[in-house]
């Protein structure tokens, strides 16, 4: 029952907000919806919800993990969005890169799409039927496209177009993959194992290996495009850099995870069919490649939102690498998914604060944040140290776990490449972050005395605290939950 609620609340509220006139009320609804969703999700930990549609909708540990991340991030984002939309509430803005005037998309559309986006992502996490999963993932694309085009200027439009086209192509391939899976699951007499996870896993022995492999390839490429694995990641930096920061936070923190979940699902089937190794080798390759490509674009990157976007590519690489290594690395990868989502969302939100004051996405034009926006500056630095895997923050532990798994499996080459790439990326990212945070404050900003509202600081600060705690202490409950989730991956 609660699954229905989880899906319907955002959907209905979304429809509602679409027709609402009053801005303040609409924002209130957004927050309420997010809070309700979050509390329902929290409740699912206490009372596991019953499966629906004959097991098509079911919340297993894996889905629950990602659902929780998504819901938590959405709550933070919703709170932040209230302040953000207030700040953005102006007739026309001057685009600080091309100097043209531009307007924002209607706030109603924006809010509604946010809620639809949440509904779609929820569906991704709860759907066990792979067809349904595909529909949900495509739905996330369609719901998020208008969000990216919130600021109606050239670059955001271009980004939206690329996002739409590339992701649609990818998703289309994933659909083909689903059909392949259906073929793999069908038997000589035309009967077929339903494309629902547990029945597939149950009948894994009878699946046709060749088609299964083809399925994995197609779904890997299809969902990998959405997930942002190099070289399929090309839409990601554009979309993340041009979307409003609050949307970037959701894209990077929640959406990519959903695509990742899609890949995990098919990997579950392959593992059950005894084909785990086949996918894992590819995963390791994609993981290292993604990290390498990210490193290429992070070194010397001046646009700090693109920097964060490429860092997402890197971390998606780390996740898939972890799954590719398997064993203890599965645990590490899932833990890292949590850490990365929280940290990256936090960073994007802070980037939003910086953007509103400095009105420049070029790191060169930004300096002395520590002096101009003390709170944001501290969060910015902390976030960068966290995302680059320095103690005492969460990502350190998860990356460490993956490294140890790699070496325990005796894959020194992988571990070495992994370490080297992490080091290069650290240098690239920290250089930008420090250059922005430190240094003397330009009088333009200092005299302006920008104030940091609670709504702008609270959500990222809360996320930062969680990340810090996760770096010093992994709660036993969470530990076991992630272990169970990792166990599902075999």
């Amino acid at each position, binding site marked *: 029952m609660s699954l229905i609620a989880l899906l319907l609340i955002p959907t209905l509220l979304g429809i509602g907000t679409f027709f609402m006139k009053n801005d303040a009320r609409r924002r209130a609804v957004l927050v309420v919806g997010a809070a309700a969703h979050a509390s329902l999700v929290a409740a699912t930990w206490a009372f596991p919800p019953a499966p629906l549609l004959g097991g098509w909708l079911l919340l297993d540990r894996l889905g629950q993990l990602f659902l929780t991340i998504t819901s938590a991030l959405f709550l933070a984002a919703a709170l932040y969005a209230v302040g953000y939309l207030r700040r953005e509430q102006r007739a026309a803005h001057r685009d600080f890169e091309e100097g043209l005037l531009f307007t924002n998309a209607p706030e109603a559309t924006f809010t509604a799409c946010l809620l639809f986006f949440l509904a779609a992502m929820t569906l991704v996490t709860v759907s066990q*039927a792979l*067809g*349904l999963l*595909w*529909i949900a993932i*495509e*739905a996330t*694309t*369609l719901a998020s*496209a*208008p969000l990216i*085009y919130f600021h*109606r*200027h*050239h*670059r955001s*439009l*271009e*980004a*939206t*177009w*690329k996002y*739409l*086209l590339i992701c*649609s*192509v990818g998703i*289309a391939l994933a*659909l*083909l993959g689903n*059909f392949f899976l*259906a*073929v*793999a699951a*069908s*038997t*000589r*007499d*035309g009967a*077929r194992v339903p494309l629902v996870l547990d029945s597939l896993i149950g009948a894994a022995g009878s699946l*046709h290996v*060749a*088609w299964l492999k*083809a399925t994995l390839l197609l779904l890997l490429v299809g969902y990998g495009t959405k997930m942002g694995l190099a070289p399929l990641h090309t839409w990601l*930096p*554009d979309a993340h*850099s*041009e979307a409003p920061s609050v949307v970037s936070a959701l894209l990077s923190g929640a959406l990519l995870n959903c695509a990742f979940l899609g890949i995990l699902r098919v990997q579950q089937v392959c593992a059950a069919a005894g084909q785990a190794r086949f996918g894992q080798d590819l995963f390791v390759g994609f993981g290292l490649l993604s990290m390498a490509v990210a490193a290429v*674009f992070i070194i010397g*990157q001046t646009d700090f939102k*693109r920097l964060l976007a490429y860092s997402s590519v890197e971390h998606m690489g780390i996740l898939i690498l972890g799954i590719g290594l398997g064993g203890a690395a599965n645990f590490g990868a899932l833990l890292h998914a949590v850490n990365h989502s929280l940290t990256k969302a936090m960073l994007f939100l802070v980037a939003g604060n910086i953007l509103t004051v400095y009105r420049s996405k070029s790191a060169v034009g930004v300096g002395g944040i520590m002096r101009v926006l003390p709170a944001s500056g501290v969060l910015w630095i902390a976030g960068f140290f966290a995302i680059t895997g320095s103690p005492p923050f969460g990502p350190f532990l998860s990356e460490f776990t993956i490294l140890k798994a790699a070496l325990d499996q005796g894959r020194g080459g992988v571990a070495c490449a992994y370490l080297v790439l992490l080091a290069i990326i650290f240098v690239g990212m920290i250089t930008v972050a420090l250059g922005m945070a430190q240094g003397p404050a330009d009088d333009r900003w200092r005299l302006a005395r920008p104030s940091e509202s609670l709504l702008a600081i609270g959500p990222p600060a809360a996320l930062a605290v969680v990340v810090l705690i996760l770096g010093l202490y992994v709660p036993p409950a969470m530990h076991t939950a992630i272990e169970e989730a990792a166990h599902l991956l075999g």
Partner: protein
Amino acid sequence: MGAGVDPALVLLALTSVLLLGSSRLTRGIRIVAFQGILLGGLTVAAHAHELSARVVALALLILALKGAAFPWLLSRVLQRADVRREVEPLVSYIISMMAGTLALAFSFWLSARLPLPSLPISTLAVPVALFTTQVGLFLIVSRRTALMQVLAYLVLENGIYTFGVGVVQGTPMIVELGILLDVFVAVFVMGIAIFHINREFDHIDANQLTLLTDWTG
């Protein structure tokens, strides 16, 4: 095994080749519309032996969407943008055709690699489906205007759908509908996007959208 399956598949392949060689956007739209109609027919033909209301409804829906709604929407866009011809494509039409033949070969090779567990409605089904899919991909890569890319995306979709109809029987209704809905929304949103692109940039040449890049050299 319903009659007229093979002709439909062959026509599908031919139309795709035709699309490879066509320069006029309006004709492109018509071709894609025709493919939509073909798919509707194919759906019926594929389930000829156990024709059910469900199948007919689905076929009609497909006809309505792919045969009517999309072409209508896209030609609206075309009028707004008032672009008649595809801008000089990145890959000339002749080479496109040749590539098409290569793609055909590849799809036969691939379908040979993948022995079907159960008999499809036709031996042509898999190759043609894969071929159409590749044509779609190829067109996206090789054509400039955003509109053409949407058309190409539709061709890609058609290919995949052909595979679904031809090889996978008995997909659950809800999934079919969901897929159609998604495709519909996708095309709809893309259409809107093209409206905006045309308004903002005064052209719909997707290749000139290169503001966002890390390549300064």
